[in-house]
């Protein structure tokens, strides 16, 4: 019998508009400073924005497998620390304060292990002048059928009934890390200091108080939409359910992720004379299909049709929603100012 998804009443979902992302990692730092700045968490990036085509983090995660096939768990393996990359300590004291600034350059004290979470950042594919890259926003997908949850022999992972957020109970977690193996998006990290597995919590303490998650609220590119999937007023509902221009990453992984992506449009190719090849696209469709499945073609065509409409001077509610003239329209009601929250002491 296939693995059954846990029941929920409502599901929070997000949309990332890849066409607007600046690759600034403000989201990454927002999460880092809020949730992962303690001992044992140095190497964790619950949110990361990877350059694609690229290896992402942990290195080459897309090839590690996991998730489900026809409802059956697909074997994977534990990512190694070297595939995440260690958190480097830099020689700030020497270079900045120790008077060595003229003869030493800023470098990791612990030595270079030739890989890190953003090692291939902004590295393009294709040959000039037709090179290309784009940004992929990664957090836990808060899957409808979480492979992490199904893999845990201690039932330390649960999916909240009221909002579908997937959480690890650190009291129950014994550090067996079957979840890390099984998650096909490899979004779980092991905390060596606390000996427990940890991951994105979708900022549930903020959600519970009507505040959008930190990486959403802080994004200067207005890339990130959040809301209940069944809230017909929410941008997320419209983009995913009505206009269907936001689609899951690697749907074939079988976990039914709840993070959706508006796939990247491309600039056209140049020919040998430097002239634009009309109707061409830099990012190979085949590559995009490898990420989003064949449905990506329909979405890109829909976006192009809609853009043509606005060029003719017509209105497009879909594009207006994606542009997000008013930031509050992006957060499905989770618009409370985080500054009004009482901070835990």
């Amino acid at each position, binding site marked *: 019998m296939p693995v059954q998804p846990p029941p929920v009443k409502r599901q929070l979902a997000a949309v990332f508009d890849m066409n607007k992302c600046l690759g600034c990692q403000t989201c990454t730092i927002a999460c880092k400073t809020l949730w992962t700045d303690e001992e044992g968490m140095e190497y964790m990036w619950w949110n990361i924005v990877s350059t694609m085509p690229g290896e992402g983090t942990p290195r080459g995660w897309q090839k590690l497998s996991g998730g489900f096939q026809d409802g059956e768990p697909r074997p994977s393996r534990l990512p190694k620390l070297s595939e995440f990359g260690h958190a480097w300590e830099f020689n700030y004291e020497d270079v900045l304060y120790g008077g060595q600034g003229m003869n030493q350059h800023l470098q990791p004290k612990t030595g270079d292990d030739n890989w890190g979470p953003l090692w291939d950042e902004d590295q393009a594919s294709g040959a000039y002048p037709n090179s290309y890259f784009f940004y992929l926003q990664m957090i836990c997908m808060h899957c409808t059928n979480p492979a992490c949850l199904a*893999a845990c022999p201690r039932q330390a992972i649960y999916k909240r009934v009221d909002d579908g957020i997937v959480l690890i109970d650190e009291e129950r977690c014994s550090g067996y890390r079957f979840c890390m193996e099984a998650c096909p998006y490899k979004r779980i990290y092991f905390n060596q200091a606390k000996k427990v597995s940890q991951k994105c919590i979708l900022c549930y303490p903020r959600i519970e108080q009507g505040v959008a998650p930190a990486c959403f609220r802080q994004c200067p590119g207005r890339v990130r939409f959040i809301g209940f999937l069944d809230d017909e007023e929410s941008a997320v509902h419209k983009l995913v359910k009505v206009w269907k221009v936001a689609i899951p990453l690697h749907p074939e992984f079988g976990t039914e992720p709840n993070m959706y992506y508006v796939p990247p449009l491309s600039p056209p190719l140049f020919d040998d004379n430097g002239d634009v090849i009309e109707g061409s696209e830099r990012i190979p469709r085949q590559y995009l299909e490898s990420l989003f499945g064949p449905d990506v073609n329909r979405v890109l065509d829909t976006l192009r049709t809609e853009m043509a409409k606005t060029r003719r001077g017509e209105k497009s509610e879909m594009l207006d929603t994606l542009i997000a003239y008013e930031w509050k329209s992006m957060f499905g009601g989770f618009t409370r100012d985080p500054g009004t929250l009482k901070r835990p002491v």
Partner: protein
Amino acid sequence: MRAVKLQLATKTLLNSGAFQWKKVPAEELRMAGARVDLQPSRYVRTVWAGRPVGAVRNLKVQTAHNSRDILFRLEWPDESKDTDFGDGSVFPDAASVIFPLKGDAPLETMGSPRSPINAWYWRANFATDEARNRSCQGYGTEEDSPERQVQARARWEDGRWYVVFARPLSANGKTNVKLSSAHPAKVAFAVWEGSSQERGGLHSCSRQWLDLVIE
């Protein structure tokens, strides 16, 4: 197996290299890999179906008491000393001394809700002399018990682990097995080989409960 009576301090016997252990009769146990089909996680059952479980096949055990504490000395071959999580793909080596709390608790599932077990648990990344006293009602249900009188001291040398567990004979409480010369008891043993990624319900275990007689 028989816990022989020795007039020696627990401190002395916690040292697995103490010459006095040489006189204590030893049992050589054949260990069996845990049954994969009984694991509570579908992922584990699928992935480990085709993988050998229970890398440690032979365990040498001795037991003794000094009227105050009862001790178990475990010894097994392990070429790789895993005391932590290494590059992230290994686990610390570990061992357990297991007792049924009621009658014949099922050993191959580590107890059941009706028949819990008491497991003294040592893991190679614990602090010196640290051991956990756990109760368990089946795979995946292990809990640290509030009664913490178990200790363990370990040594790895030339490709072998030596671990001595100790607990006061008088320890009581709901999750503690009763051990005294008046009570016939049963005991079993489990070992986890960290470099083979053994953890949780993936271990090697003695094949059945052994009768334990305390002199």
